[in-house]
């Protein structure tokens, strides 16, 4: 143990490299698609090319006689046993939702919906046979536009009688958390400032690195499901509920999972179909989606229209905010689809002291892929709206955007602070984060440069964007979830197992899919129990091992699961104390534990943790009443949400000749409380920033007027790579959370929530002298150029036209290939 001297004093706070990375990066690990079982069969899905249609017949005979095919199942075949996919968050008592079969029976409501599954000896044979399934459709008119859907003229589900799923309101006057918003707006119209804007949250696709994959083994007493998911515990519960299989007969394993971003917070039709196919054939089956299928039918994110009214006094003190949302559910309600906009309801007031607030949300169905959680889920939408509005208010008042924010934000001495949305922010310091960000950014210097460029009419203009965000994460106090009509709780569970040889097994109910839990959980245990970092093994993702848990999403794992871990470790120590006292022939009250040693107070007598563990294991000489184990577990229900915040500053250059926008500088100073591992935090922030910047500049799921996903491959869904980003400057201020022992706040979504408005604010700031006050996201060069060209007129220029006619024209699962137009398919590729 010569390395001991090199160890950090405490593991918590050390920039440990991630212990899981070697296997994750090399891929020499258990990804679901790597699993091979004896006798395993393979699935291929047949998906509807139409956005809205009635199925009038399916001829599976050619597919069934295709080589290697064991079975072809249609919705008709399984309609009595497949149940309906579940929605766990009916936000209102009268929420409407269509039945959502895993395999469509007689009606398809989006292009990509599964209409049949082929089970075959190889993936190739399954795919070949899937091409031979002949489905007759009667096309129905699709409703694709959110505002059209609100009119109920064309229905996504005619049997529902309406496109409206639910209406949800928060009103500060009604809740007793503030005044009536309409009065504030009326007063501002008379003698103040009213800012009215409508912003579009475009539809996005959570493009995780590992496509979704599921293996189901029906042999043995328990049905075993391996699945690339964020939520193995949910998959177990909902497999039981949807298919009527006893939960005790189901084991779900999320092996190593390659990213999720909310996109794997789902119980999917494919998971249900894998179970159906495995039980039908009695064989293990595997299904791994293609990237095209992933983009088409994995759930999408965002997609809202936001109508916003901000009332303020003439000096820029906000007096009220009214939010009217239209939120696109897509064709069905997934696990938490309906609640996503509601997660934003408490965040539109952000870091500010608004006296009146109202949030109205209408959830609507369209004939598109259903939406659900995507990194930030509800809070990016809210943050975007308010941070854009604060810039608009600053422009209206004629002051710097930072000044208008300072005038309205909660001062650091005012924490804890209960907001107009009824949330109590435990700690924070917006002044400190902003001051540090300003300094790192050289805010004043860049403002000077901006003025110089304006003065000399430089074709490349500079814009500075601000986003002083906060968010609510660490999902979630069960009582709040109950009040919001969510089906489950928000607690988390941890077990600490003290192995006889001195090693420690930590079992967590969270389900990492790239975050680095194994490293951080090891750091926490190393400090708590005084064992080497390397001696801690973190187990997760298998419902037979981690039997209790509520998985990973909503930046919850550390602040909820980490706290459960701390509590379990404390219980190990408390359990060990009488053992140590017995070994040391001392009174329990005289035993103290530190640095891995149990010591008798005031003496140099002591026993190492490993010795106590071994004695408990051998249990040759235990006094009566002492259990021969030191293992302990804990379930923790958070007392409140976690409220990280930060100041993000972005400088964008806008080439006014082409509309091209490029990032010049990005600085963020995040306050996420105490930091367990700065390297992991930096990684989370960098990744989050890029994902948020991508919403601002690059990504959009676009459908044509038939409901075909046009951006159905990475040719047209322009996901950025490292080549498209700059080096970010990140730093932290620390206001420890007061609601968990670690003093930590969630960081998984922070960057993604904060960065989008910072970027768009910067682009708009560059163009504001031309009279431009909005560019719709993503701020494509064409949109920017057209805004410049039509500046001063009301003419709105939308991006139009189809995708580039490359090889995805008429891609499978979309419109049927048209031989006359798919020239690319005919092109020789020498």
């Amino acid at each position, binding site marked *: 143990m010569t390395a001991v001297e090199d160890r950090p004093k405490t593991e918590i706070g050390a920039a440990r490299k991630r212990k899981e990375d070697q296997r994750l990066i090399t891929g020499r690990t258990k990804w679901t698609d790597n699993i091979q079982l004896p006798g395993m069969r393979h699935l291929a899905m047949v998906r509807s090319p139409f956005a809205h249609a009635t199925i009038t017949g399916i001829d599976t005979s050619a597919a069934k006689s295709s080589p290697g095919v064991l079975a072809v199942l249609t919705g008709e075949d399984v309609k009595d046993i497949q149940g309906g996919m579940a929605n766990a968050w009916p936000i209102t008592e009268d929420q409407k939702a269509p039945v959502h079969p895993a395999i469509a029976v007689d009606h398809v409501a989006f292009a990509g919906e599964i209409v049949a599954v082929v089970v075959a000896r190889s993936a190739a044979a399954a795919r070949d046979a899937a091409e031979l399934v002949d489905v007759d459709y009667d096309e129905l008119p699709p409703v694709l536009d959110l505002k059209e859907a609100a009119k109920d003229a064309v229905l996504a589900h005619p049997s529902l009688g309406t496109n409206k799923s639910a209406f949800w309101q928060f009103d500060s006057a009604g809740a007793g958390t503030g005044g009536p918003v309409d009065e504030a707006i009326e007063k501002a119209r008379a003698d103040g400032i009213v800012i009215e804007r409508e912003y579009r949250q475009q539809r996005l696709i959570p493009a995780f690195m590992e496509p979704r994959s599921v293996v189901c083994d029906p042999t043995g007493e328990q049905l075993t499901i391996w699945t690339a998911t964020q939520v193995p515990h949910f998959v177990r519960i909902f497999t039981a509920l949807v298919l009527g299989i006893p939960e005790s007969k189901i084991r779900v394993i999320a092996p190593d999972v390659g990213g999720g971003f909310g996109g794997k917070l789902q119980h999917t039709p494919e998971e249900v179909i894998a179970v159906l196919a495995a039980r039908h054939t009695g064989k293990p089956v595997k299904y791994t989606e293609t990237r095209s299928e992933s983009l088409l039918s994995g759930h999408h994110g965002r997609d809202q229209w936001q109508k916003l009214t901000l009332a303020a006094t003439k000096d820029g003190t906000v007096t009220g905010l009214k939010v009217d949302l239209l939120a696109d559910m897509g064709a069905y309600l997934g696990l938490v689809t309906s609640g996503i906009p509601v997660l934003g309801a408490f965040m539109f007031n952000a870091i500010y002291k608004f006296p009146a607030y109202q949030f109205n949300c209408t959830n609507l169905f369209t004939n598109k892929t259903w939406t659900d959680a995507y990194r930030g889920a509800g809070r990016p939408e809210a943050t975007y709206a308010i941070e854009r509005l604060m810039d608009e208010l600053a422009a209206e008042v004629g002051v710097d955007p930072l000044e208008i924010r300072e005038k309205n934000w909660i001062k650091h001495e005012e924490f804890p602070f209960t907001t107009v949305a009824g949330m109590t922010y435990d700690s924070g310091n917006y002044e400190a984060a902003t001051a540090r960000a300003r300094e790192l950014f050289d805010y004043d210097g860049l403002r000077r440069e901006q003025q110089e460029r304006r003065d000399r009419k430089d074709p490349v203009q500079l814009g500075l964007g601000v986003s002083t965000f906060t968010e609510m994460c660490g999902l979630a106090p069960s009582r709040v979830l109950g009040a919001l009509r969510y089906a489950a709780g928000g607690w988390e569970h941890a077990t600490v197992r003290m192995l006889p040889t001195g090693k420690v097994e930590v079992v967590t109910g969270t389900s990492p899919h790239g975050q680095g839990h194994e490293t951080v959980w090891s750091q926490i245990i190393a400090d708590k129990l005084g064992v080497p970092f390397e001696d801690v093994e973190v187990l997760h993702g298998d419902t037979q091992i981690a039997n209790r848990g509520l998985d990973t999403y909503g930046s919850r794992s550390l602040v909820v699961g980490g706290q459960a871990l701390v509590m379990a470790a404390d219980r190990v120590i408390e359990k060990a104390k009488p053992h140590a006292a017995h070994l040391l022939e001392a009174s329990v009250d005289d035993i103290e534990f530190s640095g891995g040693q149990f010591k008798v107070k005031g003496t140099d007598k002591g026993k190492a943790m490993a010795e106590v563990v071994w004695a408990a294991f051998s249990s040759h000489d235990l006094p009566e009443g002492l259990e021969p184990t030191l293992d302990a577990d804990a379930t923790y229900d958070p007392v409140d949400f976690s409220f990280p915040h930060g100041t993000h500053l972005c400088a964008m250059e806008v080439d006014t000749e082409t509309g091209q926008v490029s990032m010049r500088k990005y600085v963020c100073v995040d306050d996420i409380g105490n930091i367990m591992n700065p390297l992991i935090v930096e990684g989370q922030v960098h990744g989050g920033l890029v994902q948020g910047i991508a919403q601002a500049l690059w990504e959009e799921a676009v459908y044509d007027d038939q409901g075909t996903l046009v951006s159905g491959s990475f040719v047209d869904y322009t996901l950025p790579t490292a080549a498209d980003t700059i080096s970010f400057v990140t730093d932290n201020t620390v206001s420890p959370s007061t609601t968990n022992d670690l003093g930590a706040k969630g960081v998984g979504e922070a960057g993604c929530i904060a960065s989008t408005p910072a970027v768009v604010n910067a682009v708009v700031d560059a163009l504001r002298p031309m009279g431009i006050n909005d560019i719709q996201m993503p701020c494509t*060069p064409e949109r920017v*150029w057209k805004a410049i060209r039509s500046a001063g007129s009301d003419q709105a220029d939308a991006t139009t*036209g189809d995708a580039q006619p*490359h090889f995805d024209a008429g891609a499978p699962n979309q419109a049927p290939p048209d031989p006359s137009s798919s020239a690319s398919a005919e092109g*020789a*590729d*020498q």
Partner: protein
Amino acid sequence: MIPARFDYVAPTSVADALSALAEAGDDAKVMAGGQSLLPILRMRLNAPETVVDLGRIEELRGVRDEGDHVVIGAMTTYADVLASDLVRQHAGVLTDAIEEVADPQIRHRGTVGGALVHADPAGDVGAPVLALDAELVVTGPGGERTVPAAEFFRDLFETAVGEGELLTAIRIPKHTGWGSRYEKFVRVAHQWSIVAVAATVRVEGGAIAEARIGLTNMGSTPLRATAVEQALVGKAATEDAVREACAAAAEGTNPPSDLNGDADYRKHLATVLTRRAVLAAAGA
């Protein structure tokens, strides 16, 4: 992403490849680097009976000096062309363009010949090959023929290479001492060109003596902006002079409209990018 079943032939000589093609008949596809063909097959947009893979034909790889020409074997990868001093020195605009192709993985697999025969108008090698007045060597059962670049691109994904024939080499007249620039306009780095302009110019005494300009993705084939080339001759290599000469860069073009921009926007981009490319190529 599993293609439909096909027969696979991997000849080791051009002669064998030609007979394999003849034998396979009209339902064969030729594969070079596979960077466009494989996605097409995997998405089942095409299902040829036979794929003839040229990957093992050594005689089709490499760059050589043939006096006043640089000759690039059709199966030379982008990465190998990038590494070639010959190309950099005598056909710099091609190097410039290839630096902008996709990403390193694709540049190590994809070939110049494959890209030319695939003839995607948004691909990056067509415009520089056109601008450099290259000749394309096409080999068929009857022997070799040479097609000038101006006659090579017929339409969207259609070239002068006929059934049973192969593109075997690209012969580029040396443009030694010419300045060059490929201005590629994209939203994300790995994207196909929204519009791109290949410019190579010869400057004498501060004035443009000769200019060659190729346009990427401004129509169903790569295009040559000959009017601009002529207008530039004798012009001083200055912002104002070049701006005026390049104003007509988009005239007569018929670019596509898609998610990245409509035709009018592309026409606007073409004029801006042509000016920038020419100025950069002229060292201004």
